[in-house]
């Protein structure tokens, strides 16, 4: 009984939030089942404000609100450069890819990122690219799903004492349920609601440390010269507010690029462009998406550094060893049930919005871009099989979470950053070239995809940690440049593989 009394507000808010998500999924159940265009891209009829919030909530996840926010506890306020790089790529994505991708995919009747490669480049080789890119999606996103399920399970465990595996199962299967029911409709509408919660919680979380210490001036005084120690045990001094003191700029640039460039290459982000309903909506989303993302990142990226103002030297020495615990510590120290309840809802929203987006991408890749290509099926079989594929993949992910709870491995956050680098290097040239270069070819797209993957692996295994000067040069930098050059050179060398003029006129129209 004490448990219920103590956690009443958090439990009430969590149940209300979960109930809302499930209701949205159920509400769109019938509409989503009426055809592939409905289930896969919400029939390209979604208003701009929904798409804008959905893009933001899909991009930021629990990794952002817990992992990245906590990192500045170790690296200081200049960690916000991560947020700046991220916002730059959000703007590039909406300016460079958004409008053109919406127009071209409608002309080609493309419903997934892999099928865009096939329909744009038009050949048996392009069909192979479609299947290959679907496999890349399956392998690259499983670690992301595991990371989010783990993040949410830890929140449930620390705040509500829910056993870890039960928490992971609840998060995975609740998200799976509303995604299966409403397809892209429920993914986008729940993402939008979650985006509103996340935006509010980012601002609320920023306010907490300032309220705790009594304002901006006492806070800046506390963190400008601190006796707290770094991970190596050295006093931080003025490191938290000094550029380049606690972390090299090159390191921030590498991690920032690998996470920021997901905006221009990861299918769960790019698929948002497919569903925008008209030019007015596109314009709204182009303005507001960077605002939602940028303002939220301004709030959370430096949060960890501010928590130094709330912690004693002893507490800080413990926290610096595991910065994932910084946000939880902040809520515990602030000690207000109402605030904790709202922030927990925000953390769930951050996790579930990214999870739902990934689940539908995996379902469509598995059924439409692998199974359907290898063994064609009738259209009415596509949706039921996509639903089963999503359910099966959630069971597989839960199995992986369960195994990892028995045999833990380190570096899941590193693995998801690596997956981001693979997407950026292997997908972006083929998509960008497809949208802008009439002379781009299937051979160019395939070669750049393979070079992007290989360069990522080779740089990480054989160069980055073998030479002292290259330690902070993330694999995304050489892999992305090599992949882009490969696309241009190979396309130029294989002019005979350019699709015919009639097809290119259909794709490019009058633009």
């Amino acid at each position: 009984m004490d448990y219920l009394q103590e956690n009443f507000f958090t439990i009430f808010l969590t149940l209300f939030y979960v109930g809302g998500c499930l209701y949205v999924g159920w509400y769109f159940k019938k509409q989503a089942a009426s055809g592939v265009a409905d289930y896969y891209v919400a029939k390209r009829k979604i208003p701009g404000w929904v798409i804008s919030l959905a893009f933001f909530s899909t991009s930021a996840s629990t990794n952002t609100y817990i992992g990245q926010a906590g990192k500045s506890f170790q690296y200081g306020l200049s960690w916000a450069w991560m947020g700046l790089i991220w916002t730059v790529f959000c703007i590039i994505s909406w300016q460079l890819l958004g409008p053109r991708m919406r127009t071209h995919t409608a002309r080609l009747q493309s419903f997934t990122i892999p099928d865009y490669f096939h329909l744009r480049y038009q050949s048996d080789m392009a069909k192979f690219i479609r299947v290959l890119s679907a496999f890349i999606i399956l392998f690259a996103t499983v670690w992301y799903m595991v990371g989010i399920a783990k993040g949410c399970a830890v929140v449930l465990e620390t705040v509500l004492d829910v056993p870890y595996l039960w928490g992971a199962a609840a998060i995975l299967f609740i998200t799976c349920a509303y995604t299966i029911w409403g397809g892209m409709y429920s993914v986008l509408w729940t993402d939008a609601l979650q985006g509103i919660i996340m935006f509010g919680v980012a601002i609320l979380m920023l306010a907490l440390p300032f309220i705790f210490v009594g304002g901006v001036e006492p806070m800046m005084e506390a963190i400008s010269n601190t006796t707290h120690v770094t991970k190596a045990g050295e006093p931080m001094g003025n490191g938290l507010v000094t550029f380049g003191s606690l972390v090299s700029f090159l390191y921030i640039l590498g991690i920032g690029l690998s996470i920021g460039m997901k905006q221009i290459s990861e299918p769960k982000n790019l698929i948002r462009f497919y569903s925008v309903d008209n030019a007015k909506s596109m314009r709204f989303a182009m303005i507001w998406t960077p605002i939602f993302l940028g303002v939220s990142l301004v709030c959370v990226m430096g949060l960890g550094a501010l928590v130094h103002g709330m912690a004693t030297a002893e507490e800080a020495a413990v926290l610096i060893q595991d910065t994932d615990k910084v946000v939880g510590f902040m809520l515990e120290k602030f000690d207000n049930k109402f605030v904790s309840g709202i922030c927990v809802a925000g953390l769930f929203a951050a996790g579930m919005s990214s999870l739902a987006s990934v689940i539908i991408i995996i379902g469509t890749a598995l059924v439409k871009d692998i199974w359907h290509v290898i063994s064609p099926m009738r259209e009415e079989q596509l949706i039921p099989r996509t639903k089963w594929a999503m359910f099966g993949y959630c069971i597989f992910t839960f199995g992986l979470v369960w195994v990892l709870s028995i045999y833990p491995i380190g570096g899941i956050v590193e693995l998801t950053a690596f997956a981001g680098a693979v997407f950026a290097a292997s997908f972006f040239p083929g998509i960008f070239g497809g949208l802008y270069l009439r002379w781009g070819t299937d051979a160019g797209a395939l070669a750049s995809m393979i070079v992007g993957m290989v360069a990522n692996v080779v740089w990480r295994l054989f160069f980055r940690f073998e030479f002292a000067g290259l330690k902070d040069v993330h694999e995304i930098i050489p892999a992305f440049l090599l992949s882009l050059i490969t696309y241009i050179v190979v396309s130029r060398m294989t002019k005979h593989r350019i699709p015919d003029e009639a097809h290119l006129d259909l794709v490019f129209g009058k633009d």
Partner: protein
Amino acid sequence: MDFWTAFPYWGILLLVGINAFIVIRRGIEVEDRH
């Protein structure tokens, strides 16, 4: 707080403002439409 540490905080806000200005000034075309 030195200039380069503070830069990303106001830089992000300035950047999204410039982006909004550019989009407002520019026409966007989107068609209404294996």
